[in-house]
């Protein structure tokens, strides 16, 4: 299946292709040598390209079609996952997956946006753009987790909440707002991880927690660079400029005090080695849940309140 890959990553793709071909050939001293040379070149090429990533290139990585998605992480770091469906109000929204699993043998609630790989699956999952029922399903599972005193992890990867007639009719804004309000007070530890695209309110609706982690090449933004360019520059082709202005990279958001920890990705990005990425993520979750478990419920909730309460920059004179 042909996937569009950003041109700046093409040299990496070509080298990977060459390595795959060499690996298929008969082992001879000559091919072994060529293989080693190609692998070295791949490492160097990755180092060169990733040494100076622009925010716009980071956007392309965050949206990379081979990037691991929520279900990949769930299966990569948890066992016994049971997906639960439906908001008990209207429908099930495949743009969000939610359920329970075992993490290091302990039960945990896991919720995340889910993109599709094939065209059919992309459409079925609405490109991970949830409708209100997706957010309501998420909240239903989170409240259930609270009832059974289970920690919650959310994986955030969406272009944004779906802008459609049906979504508006059923209260997209209300669904998002209610999640923000409810998540602020849930009496169990919540760790939110921005794994790919953190698209505005559609991302934030799964993004209120005790820790906000972000993968190195993920993005988190109040509006897509394309949308921002269309509004402020009246020109969608200025997206590259908008991406820079918006400060949407993990490093920027760590600096702004919004993200607690940036999780390093494998060389070339998470898509190059999904199991390694899942292992890094699992280690981070272990670390943060261990810290959060020590807190009494009241302290947990009041720290969460303070965390968001102090976000924002202003002057008082």
């Amino acid at each position, binding site marked *: 299946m042909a996937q569009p890959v950003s041109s700046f990553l093409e040299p990496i793709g070509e080298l990977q292709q060459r390595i795959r071909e060499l690996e298929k050939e008969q082992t001879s001293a000559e091919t072994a040598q060529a293989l080693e040379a190609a692998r070295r070149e791949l490492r160097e090429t990755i180092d060169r390209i990733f040494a100076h990533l622009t925010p716009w290139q980071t956007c392309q990585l965050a949206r990379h079609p081979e990037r691991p998605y929520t279900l990949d992480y769930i299966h990569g770091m948890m066992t016994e996952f049971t997906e639960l469906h439906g908001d008990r109000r209207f429908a099930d929204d495949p743009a969000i997956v939610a359920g329970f699993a075992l993490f290091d043998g302990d039960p945990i609630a896991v919720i995340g946006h889910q993109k599709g790989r094939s065209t059919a699956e992309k459409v079925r999952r609405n490109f991970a753009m949830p409708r209100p029922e997706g957010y309501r399903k998420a909240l239903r599972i989170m409240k259930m987790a609270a009832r059974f005193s289970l920690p919650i992890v959310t994986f955030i990867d969406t272009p944004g909440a779906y802008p459609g007639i049906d979504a*508006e009719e059923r209260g997209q804004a209300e669904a998002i707002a209610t999640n923000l309000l409810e998540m602020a007070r849930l009496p169990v530890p919540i760790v939110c991880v921005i794994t790919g695209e953190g698209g505005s309110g559609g991302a*934030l609706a799964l993004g209120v927690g005790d820790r906000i982690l972000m993968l190195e090449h993920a993005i988190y933004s109040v509006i897509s660079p394309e949308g921002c360019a269309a509004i402020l520059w009246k020109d969608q082709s200025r997206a590259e400029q908008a991406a820079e*202005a918006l400060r949407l990279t993990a490093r920027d958001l760590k600096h702004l005090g919004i993200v607690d920890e940036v999780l390093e990705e494998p060389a070339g990005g998470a898509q190059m080695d999904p199991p390694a990425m899942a292992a890094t993520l699992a280690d981070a979750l272990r670390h943060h849940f261990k810290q959060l478990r020590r807190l009494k419920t009241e302290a947990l909730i009041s720290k969460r309140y303070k965390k968001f309460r102090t976000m924002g920059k202003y002057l008082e004179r």
Partner: protein
Amino acid sequence: MKPEANVREGLWIKCEACKEILYHKEVTNNALVCPRCDHHFRMTAAQRLELLFDEGQYKTLFRPIRSVDPLGFVDTKAYPDRLKAYTRRVGPGDALIVGQGNIEGEPAIIAAMEYAFMGGSMGSVVGEKMARAIERCLARKLPLISVACSGGARMQEGVLSLMQMAKISAGLARMREKGLPYISVLTDPTTGGVTASFAMLGDINIAEPGALIGFAGPRVIEQTIRQKLPEGFQRSEFLLEHGMLDMVVHRRDLKAAIARCLTYFR
């Protein structure tokens, strides 16, 4: 009341809905509602507070809070320059003015958005003022009324703007726990991050007639689905029908409606 920005200065004005030429005073004396067709003209935050507080009297809170430029944001203009221009033109209150006063004799806090200040966009200042308004309500056991009028989050402050949604909603959750009433008034327009946070979280949600209310803007939806939107879509009456609002109230009855609701929760 002073004439509002989109009601042109002068003796005569044209109603943008019924196209009638109206005597200016006739409109201002009618709470900026067209006496012919009931079209609700947009109000400034100050006009809104005057309308809702007894004798139009209130104390402005959190006045010294000002926007900064945390990202060094430049589009076709630098954000600090934009801020300066709007402050000069509209006033120092940014896109939200918070007042404390009485509503039919009972103390309350009202937070009214100022659309003329960068489209009522919500950045750190709007978030901070709302959070402080909520904390003051918690400390003094006061009811909170917000009047939304906003295009959504302020892009120039990036994710910091987005986080204001979470910050305000977290505060409202505390008001709920403490049993303090919060009434949300939605006016034309209320979209984006403001709708998807405090505007939709009222114990009671009241809209003015004909107001555009939604999460996504109509143009974005049209571009996404490549269809014409149905008549009346995302208007107050549409939201009432779909269960998102408790009532749609004419501006002349707004204060009485708020006051009556507050009597139930005293």
